[in-house]
């Protein structure tokens, strides 16, 4: 190898060092979480950064049992699926109409759908509670999902309208000449071409629904209806928290998400990047 080639290789190797360090930095909290999840409470409090004096693998079982994680996980998944379906269904229809058709009142409709983005959850919490009460909708995961969707639709319409308006008019016209109706244009042309945008929106909606605490706390009274964010806070007792069990629980519930991310990593990144550019 020439001197120039060797130099180039060295630069590349050294160039990667900051990346390795950065990766290590990101892995430290995860590693600490793994170690902590297998400590006893006293071990954590007397030696927070060190290795456990005794490895308590049973913390995972205890966390699942005491924390009722399987129930919370199932509930969160139901909310996630319903919120995603409802948001994407409504937002994509609305975005399709707003981006592909020119009609009177279009601007107003666009503002109407996106204005909801400015409403803060806290300002409507009590009215929402009253609505849930009058509909007898406490503990109803479908109702919670609809409320989540109502908060997610404005943002989703905003992003998807931008995405769909990028699809060239000519493709749509060709599809119509080939015999497609508007439904066909929507399902066979615009939706597939907006796939990355939909994925970006889906990622963000899913994240919000997964992490939401306040509404879930207020709307779900029955402990068996709780979602993960509310359920995990059950490890914080007033007089004695259980951080080791909390870490164990957090690890258990993050495994499926990490697996999903690993599977769809490329698409997630692509979607978010495109979303950033186009949005």
């Amino acid at each position, binding site marked *: 190898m020439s001197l120039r080639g060797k130099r180039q290789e060295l630069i590349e190797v050294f160039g990667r060092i900051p990346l390795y360090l950065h990766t290590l930095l990101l892995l430290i909290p995860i590693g600490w979480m793994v170690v902590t999840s297998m400590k006893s409470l006293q071990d954590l409090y007397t030696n927070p950064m060190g290795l456990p004096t005794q490895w308590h693998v049973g913390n995972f079982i205890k966390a699942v049992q005491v924390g009722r994680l399987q129930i919370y996980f199932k509930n969160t998944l139901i909310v996630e699926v319903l919120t995603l379906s*409802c948001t994407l269904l409504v937002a994509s229809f609305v975005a399709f109409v707003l981006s592909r058709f020119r009609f009177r009142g279009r601007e107003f409709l666009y503002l109407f759908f996106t204005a909801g983005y400015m409403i803060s959850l806290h300002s409507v919490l009590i009215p929402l509670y009253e609505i849930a009460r009058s509909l007898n909708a406490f503990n*109803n995961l*479908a109702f919670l999902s609809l409320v989540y969707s109502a908060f997610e639709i404005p943002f989703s319409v905003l992003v998807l309208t931008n995405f769909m308006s990028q699809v060239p008019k000519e493709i749509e016209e060709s599809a119509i000449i080939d015999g497609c109706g508007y439904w066909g244009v929507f399902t066979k042309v615009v939706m597939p071409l907006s796939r990355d945008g939909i994925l970006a929106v889906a990622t963000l909606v899913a994240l919000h629904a997964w992490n939401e605490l306040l509404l879930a*706390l*207020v709307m779900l009274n029955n402990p068996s209806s709780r979602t993960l964010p*509310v359920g995990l806070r*059950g490890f914080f*007792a007033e*007089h*004695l928290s259980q951080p080791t069990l909390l870490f164990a629980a957090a690890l258990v519930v993050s495994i499926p998400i990490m697996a999903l991310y690993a599977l769809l990593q490329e698409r997630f990144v692509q979607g978010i990047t495109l979303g950033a550019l186009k949005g």
Partner: protein
Amino acid sequence: MKGAVITLVFGFLAFLLVGWNGICAQEKLVIRIMDYFVPTDTLAPHFEEVFRKFEVDFPNVRVQHEGLESADFRTKLAVEMAAGNPPDISYVVVGLSWEYGEQGLLMNLAPVFEQEREWRDTIVPTAIKAFSTPDGKIYAVPFVAQIGGLYYNKNVYERAGIAGPPTTWDELLEQVEKIKKVGAYAFVTGGKEWRYAWFITQLLVRTAGVDRVYQLARGSEVTGWNKPENGFIDALYLFKELIDAGAFPEGLNGIPRDIARMMFVQNQVAMYYEGSWKVNVWKNLGGEDFLNNSVGWSLFPAVPKAKGDQDGMVGGPVHGWGISAKLDETKKPLVIELVKRITSPVMAARFLENAQPVVVKVDESVMARLHPILLRQFEEYNKAQKVALPTDVICVPPVDNAIKKIAVPGIVDGSLTPEEAAEEVNREAEKYFSAKQ
């Protein structure tokens, strides 16, 4: 085809929304109880035992226990009360019970106690008195009491060459210097969760006296927090003196309570001012040996230059079970029966064993099993001439929040002078009480 798909999708959503509750409708009567005994709390299994037994005795009833993290509990309770839909049973502090009782959300239990003499006699009379309003209404069944005091770490004291806990303010300041020299902190608390109320109340007892604390919280001086003669400014000055002396760690407002506890257990902190529940915390976090050999407890030092009660304590009956005023006649007796069971002497014994002093009379044999620190607390409490309830228990919520979330954090980070901090509290008090009129 597309029409069918859309109909199906919307039909499915409509089914989920409307049909769910109908299909899963409980034929049983649900009694909802909300508190902060989360599933991992050491007391949670005892509650579950009572509830399951109740369901066996009353097969048409299902008890829905909602144990939430304390901040979440307060948020949810506030929302439900604001919406006029209180839980059937809720765990409330004295001040809140009066607040919600006056709003017609909690039941006045005075007539119930008149009828249920046997039940009433299981509760310490002074606790019933403490929960009563001036016009004799009782909006919660008194249950848990707390006794504030100074926990000190004997290991740090030994390192710093200190013989024992301080008895005067000047002695305390001297100890702060000695403790700092050995690389430890004199005090810590969970600033992130604004756990300042007990400490500030104790200082207020020293500067203003127990009677004045009540006058400021509920009496004739409710809008007098900014008046120098009421002692609140002096209490904030004392706190500032400790901050300026470096008694607390830097960034106190951001320290979570769990980290604060950890610092005490790890011998990084010499003193911790809070209630009786800490006995159990030290045992669980540091182990039995740590509690028995390394933790001491004493009264807060006197401040001779101040004009309040120098031997006054902070504590008393703080928590009770409020019953919704919106219950129908079918549910009411069942709910009262359930509250009787969760305030029974057996349940009270479980609380005591977990370092939660109760105001229900329990068997002497239970008392004999308690940790010496708890017994010492009871002894001092019984001896004390004057005891004030902490501001987070007795003040109206906006004033309580202003004290612990604005005034004291402002003193900690230096953004407020004691006068300005007192003014902030008074502003909230004026806003609240003028709106009430």
